[in-house]
Every structure is written in C-alpha cells, then in structure tokens.
C-alpha cells in the first residue's frame, strides 16, 4: 500500500472520531504552546539584552577593575599599602584603581585610551527662576546609541555641553524639548575637602545640546545627564580634590584599537591582576540568566508533552479495539502487517501534527496580541519581548510528530499483530 493512501486513510479515520482526536491533540497543544512561548521568550530576551548591551557598550570597550583576591575568607588583613586604596561599596570593600594602575594599563599594546569612571557627586541642577533638582551625571560616549527627543550630537560632546533627559526638561520649566536646545542650565557642586565651618561650592553652567528620550534599551539615558569626559573630570576634580578618595576609581573603561583585540587585551589585563569585562562578557552573564529561565519553561512544556504521550497511547489502543473488524478486513484483503502498523502510526502522527499546529499557532496569536501589553507593562518602549522564529516553530511541530509516532508504536504493533480470523469473527 502506498504511503500517500495510508496517510489519507489515517486522516479520514481521525475525522470520524473528531471529538476524541481534538481532545487528544489538545493535550499536546498545551505542551506545544508552552514550548513555543518559551522559545519565543528566550529568543526575545536574548535579542533584547543583545540590543541593550550593544547600545550601551562598545565592543572595543573593556570595563576594568582590580581583581579581588581569590579565596578570600572573612575580612581582609590591614596593611599600609592597601589602606589608602580600599573602596567601600555596598557589597563590601574592594581594591580600587589608582593613577599608577591607569598608567600601567595605558602601556598595554592595542590600548588606545584609559578613562577612569568619573562619577561626580554634584549637589543639584537648576535654572534661573526654577526649583533645584537632584541629579546624577554620567560620561557621554559617542559609541553608545541614544534616542534623541530633540537635538543631536555629531561625534563627541564639547566641554560645557550637556544632554538632558525629557523629565528634566519638564521639571526645569522649558515649554518644549525643542525650546530647550541652546539654553543653559546650572549645576552646583560642593567641594568636599572644604572645612565644614566654611563650605565652598561652585556653579558650572552648561548649554543643552540635545534631549534624550526614555528608551527601552538604555541604562544611562533614563536617569543620568550626560557630559563630556573632560567636563566630568573637571567636576570630579573640583568636588574630590584634596580628599582621601581622590584619584581612586572603582572602575575604568579601556578602549582598544580594534574589537578583535578586546579578548587579547582582556587576557593581558587579567594576567596583570585586573578584572576586565568585554561587552561579550556582560552579554554572556545576562544570557545565562535568560537561558536558565527558558530551560525551566521548556521543562514544563516537556512535562506536558510527556503527559500527552500517555493520552495518545490510550486513545490509539481504544481506536484499535474499536476498529478490530476494519483491521481484520484490511488484512483479509491482503494488507501487510507493516502497512497496518503504519496506518496507526500515521494516525498518531496526525494527532501530533494537529496538537503542534494548534499549540504553536495559539502561542503565536497570544504572543502577537500580548507583545505590546508586555512591552508597556515593562516600560521598554517598542521592543518586542516575544520573538517567534518560524524555523523553531517548524522544529517544534516536527518534534511533536516524532514524539506522537513513538507513542503510537505500541498500539500500532497491537493492530499489526491482530489475527484477521479472530478480528472478522467479532460481530
């Protein structure tokens, strides 16, 4: 018997038991739904983090810190050499980079520039006749993609230029984003080394170069205002000069001349006792997290499919019992055992196909409908967190067909082994 004819006959017998076929395939559909969604979420998550990392970091950039001593148990022993360069963070104390370190790193081959992460702790931002607001200042990097609500930058920022966020435009009383371009804002900073009895502060004036809008991809743009590296250094110097922490940095960013050299520079820095992270490393850490979550979801999907396998076996056994007579007739007419077995395996394949198609189809519809809501709820703009890859959907359906056929093997064997004489005696 030709495979094509068996496929048609298998489909026809399923059509005759519609309710049972649909119920059995719905069990598989649950698994297919879960698996398709988790694959979509994984793909979406990875693409999202990929975009975040690539728009916030540069593949030529390394983030460098001092390597914490290995297998350190309990508090670190005091020694004169380390005392001045310990930097306290919420997580504990770590050693920090000093100017000596920066000079050392600068000499490594392929390194173009080393800039410590100036993080000037300014007092407030204001504008003539407006309220004062707390703000954080970060360094602008031309390699980081920003979404501009108004204005733009070509290349680097000049000194005394600043990029504001939309929130501050409103707070500082500008009528519109457009109207703020070219206007000035004042940043006031305290000199930390000044005695408490005679506090000293200075006002720095900046021209608004551009306004960045909230983007689902940006880490910095949402809350920090951006100034050029030298402006940040100027602020930092004013605030910190004369304090113990001056010229001690938790991290520095190292630019290499070519993205392909990032790894070799990282290896060298690691040998020198620094902890360096490339853009790929940061991506890797986030992706590991996504993969674990996706794995858990996939596990649930697999569990649902395992359950549905027993459903298929049960349904197909009942089907064989019900159609004993038909099987007997087909065998009497000369149908080979192998073809009888195939008929039932193909019925199982149809169930698997239906279940897979229903499940992944539903997942696609639900995902497409839910995508804007998810993006809105997570406040990530127009980024889609569920990405459906047609190839992986096809693989899911084909995989389920294979699983269903394997589930159909036992009932199919029973059908193939049926004695036609016994079967035809059934009245």
């Amino acid at each position, binding site marked *: 018997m030709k495979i094509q004819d068996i496929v048609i006959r298998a489909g026809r017998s399923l059509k005759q038991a519609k309710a049972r076929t649909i119920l059995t395939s719905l069990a598989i559909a649950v698994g297919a739904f879960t698996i398709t969604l988790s694959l979509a979420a994984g793909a979406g998550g990875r693409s999202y983090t990929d975009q975040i990392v690539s728009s916030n970091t540069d593949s030529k950039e390394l983030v460098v810190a001092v390597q914490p001593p290995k297998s350190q148990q309990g508090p670190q022993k005091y020694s004169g050499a380390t005392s001045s360069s310990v930097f306290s963070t919420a997580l504990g104390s770590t050693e920090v980079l000093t100017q000596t370190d920066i000079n050392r790193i600068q000499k490594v081959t392929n390194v173009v520039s080393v800039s410590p992460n100036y993080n000037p702790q300014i007092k407030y931002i204001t504008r003539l006749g407006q309220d004062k607001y707390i703000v954080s200042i970060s360094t602008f990097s031309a390699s980081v993609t920003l979404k501009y609500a108004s204005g733009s930058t070509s290349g680097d920022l000049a000194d005394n230029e600043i990029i504001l966020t939309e929130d501050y435009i409103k707070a500082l009383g500008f009528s519109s984003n457009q109207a703020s371009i070219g206007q000035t804002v004042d940043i006031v900073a305290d000199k930390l080394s000044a005695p408490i009895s005679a506090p000293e502060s200075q006002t720095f004036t900046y021209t608004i170069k551009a306004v960045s809008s909230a983007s689902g991809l940006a880490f910095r743009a949402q809350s920090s205002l951006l100034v050029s590296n030298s402006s940040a250094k100027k602020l930092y110097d004013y605030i910190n000069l004369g304090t113990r922490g001056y010229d001690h940095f938790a991290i520095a960013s190292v630019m290499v001349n070519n993205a392909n050299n990032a790894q070799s520079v990282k290896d060298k820095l690691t040998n020198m006792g620094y902890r360096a992270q490339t853009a790929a490393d940061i991506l890797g850490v986030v992706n590991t997290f996504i993969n674990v979550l996706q794995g858990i979801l996939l596990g649930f999907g697999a569990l649902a499919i395992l359950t549905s396998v027993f459903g298929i076996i049960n349904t197909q056994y009942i089907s064989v019992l019900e159609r004993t007579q038909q099987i007997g007739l087909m065998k009497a*007419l000369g149908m080979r*055992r192998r073809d009888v077995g195939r008929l039932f395996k193909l019925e199982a394949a149809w169930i698997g196909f239906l279940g897979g198609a229903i499940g992944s189809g539903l997942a696609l519809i639900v995902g497409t409908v839910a995508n804007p809501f998810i993006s809105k709820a997570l406040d990530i703009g127009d980024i889609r967190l569920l990405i459906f890859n047609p190839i992986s959907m096809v693989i899911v359906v084909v995989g389920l067909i294979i699983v269903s056929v394997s589930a159909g093997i036992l009932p199919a064997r029973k059908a193939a082994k049926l004695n036609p004489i016994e079967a035809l005696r059934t*009245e």
Partner: protein
Amino acid sequence: MIEVLGVTKTYGKKDNAFKALCDVSFTMPSGASVAILGKSGSGKSTLMHVMSGLDRPETGKVIIDGKNIFTLKQKDIDKFRSRTMSFIFQSFFVQANESCYDNVSLPLEIADVSKSRRKSKIETALKAVELFDKKKSRARDLSGGQKQRLAVARAIVNNPQILFADEPTGNLDSVTGGVIENLLFDYNRKNKVTLVLVTHDPDLAARCDVQIHIKDGVIDSIKGNN
C-alpha cells in the same frame, strides 16, 4: 485450479485441542462455482480461511495455479491474496463511515493500483452492482441489501481469480438475498472466476457446479452437477 491436499488444522492446545479440519483433500477447477456446505462448527469457515491463506494449517498444501501458497512468506501470501482473491462476508464488513467510493477503493489501494487507474475500476464495479448513483453516500446510509451489493463491488473491483463468499445471504431476506446470488453467479459465469460459497443453505448450494459437504472437519461427500 485449486488443489487442497491433506490439510489438517487444530485449534487450542493439549486437552482443549479441537480438530477443525482433518486430512481434507479435494480439487476444484478454475472458473467453477463451488459450495462448501456444512453445519455451524463443521469447519467450513476454517477451510475457507486455509484456502485463502488467512490461516496456516499444521499439515497439508493448498496449491493454486501450481504453487503451494504455504511455501511463501506471510508477506507474499498477503500480496498474493490482494492480487488474486477477494471476500464477501455474512455481515458485510463495509466501513460505515466511508463513502461507497472509498469502500470499493480499499482493495485497489492495498494492491498498489495507481490512483489514476482506480477511478474507472471503481466506477465499473459500482455500476455492476447498480450503486453508481450512491458512490458519494456513506455506507451507513445504505440498506442491508445495498451494503452487501457494495461488498460485492469491493470484491470484484480488482478482477480477482477467486471469490470467497462466506454466507453472503445469511443476513438478508430472500428477495435481496436472491439479488446477491444472481450477482455472484453472473459474475462467476461471465468472467470465469472461481466462486467459493460457504453456506449451510442447500438451495443456494444447489446452484453451484460442485457441492462439498463437510462434517466435523472431514469431507462427507463431493457432488457435481454435471
């Protein structure tokens, strides 16, 4: 020509052993109509199963056209059966959910007849049993007599050499039964197809060329009409 030589078939084991056929031998010429007569439990159905290769006897041969079918592998017996034999049963065994067309198509599909050649064969067979206008109807919507006519169409569609009919009129009233009988004997005569009728009805058996009486698994008598 079909030769049955020393066929013995036992069902059950040891204490429960039951000899359905005991050293049965006879010959039937090709194109003849042969009735196998006997009461229920006499072994007449078993004889039909053995002759068609559905059942394997412990001993004995069934030689069809000079070939002992039991020397073949089961796979090849099945193939042989699909090309040369067909069956009509007392309880029709038509597939109630399928259309008449699909019911008749089954033996052709099993015998690997290409799709293009099936259509004309099926239509010819349906015309022969006067069911052509019902070809799209489901078999469950047919009357008993129509169902058996459908079964006849299914049996003749692949031009078999041997047609086995197991109590073909057993479930029908005398009028519809008569129609089926006429269909079978006409087909037998026109196409020189060997017709093997298994029955307990002496009137039906009397219409056949040869009557083989079987009793308790042994041949009681063989009578010929000519």
